[in-house]
């Protein structure tokens, strides 16, 4: 026979393990990128180009957008347990920029749909769309700019 304090310890261990066991039956949450974020083509001026999570592009300031380069929102596929909510963490302002190799431009105000909390459907997947704002400066050299950013998801 174990002393009573040992039972208490084992009960505690078993309870701690329950959360773990339920997780063991479930899939890990996963996320993969299925479409890149693009701000499209534009003529630079002091202002910005914003692509919404739905892919709508708007300019502010003197930035002139070209129809021939419409831009697009990023898209991710989140997968895991069916009917479970998860938290979305987007890059903070001041942490992402894109570059032409010499000049950098800041990407801020990341936004997603679903926003802070997503819900995996019956199939255990959900599309996560992400947009952001590119802060453009006057005299930005013409050229192709690119960079990367990360999106984190976690079960709630």
């Amino acid at each position: 026979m174990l002393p009573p304090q040992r039972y208490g310890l084992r009960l505690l261990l078993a309870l701690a393990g329950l959360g773990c066991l339920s997780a063991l039956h479930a899939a890990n949450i996963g996320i993969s990128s299925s479409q890149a974020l693009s701000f499209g083509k534009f003529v630079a001026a002091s202002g910005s180009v914003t692509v919404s999570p739905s892919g709508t592009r708007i300019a502010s300031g003197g930035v002139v957008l070209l129809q021939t380069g419409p831009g697009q929102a990023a898209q991710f596929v989140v997968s895991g347990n069916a009917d479970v909510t998860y938290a979305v963490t987007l890059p903070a302002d001041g942490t992402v920029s894109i570059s032409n190799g010499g000049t950098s431009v800041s990407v801020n105000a990341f936004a997603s749909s679903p926003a802070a909390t997503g819900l995996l459907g019956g199939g255990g997947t959900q599309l996560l769309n992400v947009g952001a704002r590119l802060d453009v400066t006057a005299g930005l050299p013409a050229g192709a700019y690119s960079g990367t950013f990360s999106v984190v998801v976690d079960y709630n």
Partner: protein
Amino acid sequence: MRITTVAVPGFALGVVIMAANCQAASAVATASATVLAPIAIAKSADLSFGSFAPGTGGSVTVSTSGVRVAGNTVQLATNSSPTAAKFEVSGDPAASYDITIAASTTLNDGAAHSMTLVTCSDLSMANTTSGNVASGTLSATGTQSLFVGGTLNVDAAQLAGQYSGNIAVTVEYN
């Protein structure tokens, strides 16, 4: 005591698995943009109405293809060669753009005498004599030509001399 010693490492294993299962996932995506130089326009030919005599007044029209026609009793001099204005627009291949052309302008002789010019334009040198084109699309190589003609209103008492003025043309991506 034997049972207890077995249970402790079992718990340690459970903790490790739980930690692995509760890990967040992340994905990296590319962000990109294409910055273009502003669209450009340059004049390659001036609009010229050539020489004429006013007669009892009327008009002189030069089409976008450079064909000159007199209105009313204006008499055209045959020893002058009229030309339509031509502009070269350049920018991003296949891009569409808006065109703004002053609908009318004034030609002066430098001595306070003037004539009113009403402009006309097209992108195909199609002998256009009225109306202005409002938008265009650059070619696969990023160029397009713009042709501008016009109608000059000539007064019966129009003084002889050389008259000139400017036609402002603005283009912008749309």
